[in-house]
């Protein structure tokens, strides 16, 4: 009997002792955590994309629980996540401004001329460092080697006809692609923006016509026609001030090169 009882008691005592020690330690070394932060982190998408401006989802959750951050900064999560956070924090949700990436180039293979044939590594940064900033005649245009598509966590960017195209449904607006593009063609805009200029070229009109059939020639027709003065032509390229734009669509219809396009098919007004 002793052979069984003694080890059982001894092991039981060791286990109990260690258990008590751990229980005590968890009290002594308790780290004060805001439970709401963990709850918020669990409803966030967890992609750690950084579009909210914090280091990751958990950092954003901590900032919300401390009241330092707004609850509507999570672009990938959208309205549903903001509502869930609002429930946890006990405040009413504000509208989320969903964002997405837009690419300021429409120069597909058939429309934009090439300087030479590029057979190197399929990477925009590598290609752009070559003579003349890549194989495209237009030094500002999309090279189409998909560096943006490679960094996209949501597979929202595809290369079609030699240029990158964003799937706005999938895009979470994290901005990884904008950082990866050596030509700085990608900008992050609110999804409600309707009209964008699909060109980024600073070349003069006459030069531009030779290089690309869909490049901005700086004709200023859009600038003259805009009823609210939202469009300015700077450095030979039209730019829309989205905070002023009323999405009337006059510029789209007047643009001779059709480079001002609607990215939202449904009426966003």
């Amino acid at each position, binding site marked *: 009997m002793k052979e069984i009882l*003694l*080890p059982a008691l001894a*092991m039981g005592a*060791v286990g109990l002792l260690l258990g008590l020690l*751990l229980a005590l*330690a968890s009290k002594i*070394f308790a780290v004060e955590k805001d439970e709401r932060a963990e709850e918020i982190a669990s409803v966030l998408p967890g992609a750690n994309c950084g579009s909210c401006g914090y280091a990751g989802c958990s950092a954003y959750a901590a900032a919300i629980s401390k009241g330092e951050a707004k609850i509507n900064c999570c672009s990938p999560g959208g309205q549903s996540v903001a509502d869930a956070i609002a429930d946890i924090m006990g405040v009413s949700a504000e509208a989320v401004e969903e964002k997405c990436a837009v690419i300021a180039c429409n120069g597909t293979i058939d429309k934009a001329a090439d300087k030479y044939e590029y057979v190197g590594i399929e990477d925009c940064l590598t290609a752009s460092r070559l003579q003349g900033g890549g194989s495209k005649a237009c030094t500002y245009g999309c090279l189409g080697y998909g560096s943006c598509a490679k960094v996209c966590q949501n597979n929202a960017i595809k290369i079609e006809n030699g240029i990158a195209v964003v799937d706005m449904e999938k895009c979470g607006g994290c901005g990884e692609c904008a950082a990866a593009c050596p030509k700085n063609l990608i900008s992050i805009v609110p999804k409600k923006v309707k009209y964008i200029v699909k060109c980024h070229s600073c070349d003069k009109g006459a030069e531009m016509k030779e290089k690309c059939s869909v490049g901005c020639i700086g004709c200023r027709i859009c600038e003259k026609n805009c009823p609210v003065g939202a469009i300015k032509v700077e450095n030979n390229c039209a730019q829309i001030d989205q905070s002023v734009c009323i999405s009337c669509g006059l510029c789209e219809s007047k643009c001779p090169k059709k480079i001002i396009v609607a990215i939202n098919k449904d009426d966003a007004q």
Partner: protein
Amino acid sequence: MTALVGIALTSIFVQNFVLVKFYGICPFLGVSKKLDTALGMGMAVTFVMTLASMLTWACQKFILVPLDMEYMQTIAFIVIIAALVQFVEMFLQKSIPSLYSALGIYLPLITTNCAVLGVALLNVRTASVINLLGTYTLIESVVNGFSAGIGFLLAIVLFAGVRERLESSDIPKALQGFPIALISASLLAMAFMGFQGMSF
């Protein structure tokens, strides 16, 4: 002193825990894809092995031997190691948050790592050099635990370096991924076998 240096050199090189004794293969293969995570894992293992050597030695000396129940070693040591890891985790989280976040998930992962249990069991079974009659003394156990951890750190960091190079090399399709990792691990183990026959 010479005895302690001998123990350290033996467990780092001649009897390397991973590459010669084949303990702790799971974390060795699992967390060796990147150099910095491998380093984190190695540090965590070293840390826990050193502390575990100390505590399990005390458990053997003051609980198991007096009660004449050395056969309970495995269970007793596992319980102690698991509790120790838990305790250390809580302690670090409170006192040294930077180290806690650096070790990250690796600390709880090594709770039931066989390499840690292995070093604890070997400590109470290997004949001591200092005390000619018994097994390792406390100082020998701690040195053995620490250097076994350093041996693990060395092995996993070397292997992570190899695997990072493998990522960018041209490997036949059938061997890509895990097969080539196992082959490289065995080559590394063969290199360490070169220390066999050395004794301190």
